[in-house]
């Protein structure tokens, strides 16, 4: 039992000593996950809106595929992307394997179905007549999406929170695509796996605590924005 308490004690010391290694890991983690969330939001929210609003053939099948994508194991995504990015693979020329760019790509692919799927659900939860009313007021497609987005911003923020939550905490894809290279592609989750395997429990606990706190801070901020916009 003692090693746990020792671990926690040392972890707190490490955090407050602003350990160089830990700061590097934190920087890469934030860079990868925030960029990936931002890209996934930019692609996912408009796509979700269009899928929800427009009528087209095989719409139901597309939505079920997206919903299936929400539960894809990150490690499988990591494997597929690694295969594509290997030097001999179809996108090997990009030289993105074991780079931050590759990790962002992997995380975008993990977050995208979640953000699209929840955005579709949010748009579809709006009364169809509300949409007709917006069109009847003279809105074109992009204007109507913007107006609806404002109306359902709470649900869309929930989609963003869920997307961020899924990638900040995943380990499989960033491990495979990033390679866990110190100071370059090592992130909080991969560092925890490595340090635990090496027996450095204090370091692992310290990073685990940081991951929890960071995840909490980001979610707290998003939730704060969400609840501030709530009408009582």
């Amino acid at each position: 039992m003692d090693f746990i308490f020792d671990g926690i004690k040392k972890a707190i010391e490490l955090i407050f000593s602003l350990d160089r290694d830990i700061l590097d890991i934190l920087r890469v983690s934030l860079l990868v996950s925030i960029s990936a969330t931002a890209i996934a939001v930019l692609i996912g929210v408009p796509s979700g809106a269009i899928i929800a609003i427009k009528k087209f053939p095989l719409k139901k099948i597309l939505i079920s595929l997206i919903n299936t994508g929400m539960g894809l194991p990150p490690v499988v995504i990591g494997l597929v992307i690694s295969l594509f990015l290997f030097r001999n693979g179809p996108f090997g020329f990009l030289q993105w394997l074991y780079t931050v760019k590759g990790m962002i790509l992997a995380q975008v692919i993990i977050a995208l179905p979640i953000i699209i799927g929840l955005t579709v659900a949010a748009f579809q939860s709006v009364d169809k007549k509300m949409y007709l009313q917006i069109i009847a007021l003279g809105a074109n497609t992009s204007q109507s999406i913007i107006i609806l987005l404002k109306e359902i911003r709470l649900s869309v923020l929930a989609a963003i929170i869920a997307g961020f939550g899924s990638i900040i905490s995943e380990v499989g894809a960033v491990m495979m695509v990033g390679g866990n290279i110190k100071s370059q592609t090592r992130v909080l989750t991969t560092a925890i796996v490595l340090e635990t395997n090496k027996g450095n429990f204090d370091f692992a606990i310290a990073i685990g605590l940081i991951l929890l706190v960071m995840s909490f801070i980001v979610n707290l901020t998003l939730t704060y924005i969400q609840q501030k916009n709530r009408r009582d």
Partner: protein
Amino acid sequence: MIEINNLTLNLSKSFCLDIKSLHIQDKEIFSVIGPNGAGKTTLLNILSLFENPETGRVIIFGKDILKQNDVLSYRRRISYVFSRPYLFNNTVENNVAMPLRLRGKNSESKVNEMLKLFKIEDLKHNNALKLSQGQMHRVSLARAFVSEPELVFLDEPFLSLERLYKEQLMTEIRKIIKNRGITALFVSQDQNEALCLSDRIAVMKEGKILEIGTPEQVFTSPSSKEAADFIGIETVAEGIIFKKEDNLCSVRVKSKVIQVISELNVNEEVIVLIRPQDVVVSKHKEKTSARNVFKAIIIHIESWGLEYKVRLDCGFDLLAFITKQSMKSLKLKEKDEVFISFKATAIHLIKR
């Protein structure tokens, strides 16, 4: 303004919209009334291009709207008021300004004019979703008229309002539509609303139009039994209140004066509704407590289920229902001179 020909749409096995011909004049307020599921909203949805019919031609603004490519600029010339207000989580002012902003205009003076017209200028900065039902309807109507539409579709916009409030709002709407020379197509289940608002009325049932005419024509002499069943046949006449003592109003209808109990004021133009079951027919003038007794001539007698429907001329057209037994004992026939009476409390007045 609107010309519809051979419009059909199968929505389900049991419902098919089928309108052979419907013409709505420029600057006319036209109402379509009918029970639930008659196809009224479907018609509006086709005219707003929310739904595509299977066959037919709809000419609006001189073009077949079903064949045009520029849907957006067509929609920007019309307005559609839904039965629920569908307001946005924003201030009243921003809600009303929305159609202008969508058109790339931003005219504060026009928004203010609408807020004033619909008596909601005090609520300007309030959140639209925190208003009362009645106020929300006003915001929704102000929003519909701010873009100066040439054509307005109103889909039961007064559905959830209290009667008194509704009548007041309807009178205001009629005035606004007429003053601005807008063409309006109004859809409702409520015949009193249609009477109060419209120049002409169509009765619709199961996707078909049964009857088209002025309110007087439709309500006093429906040509089909189905239409009569829905509207609950009544005597409808136009009049004006010229005297009032306490609540007893004297209303001039053509050459006659009718006495009615009503809250309305002197000089108001009104529509007088008299239900045929409230009219008493007698051979001789009898002493009665009824305030309205007139001499009349029987124009037409027709069997109407268990009763007879008697059309009379007492200075204006009037309908009465008489049981078969009374008909037999009074020995009534066409061209007979009779006396008719009805109570001042049996008449319903609608402000025009």
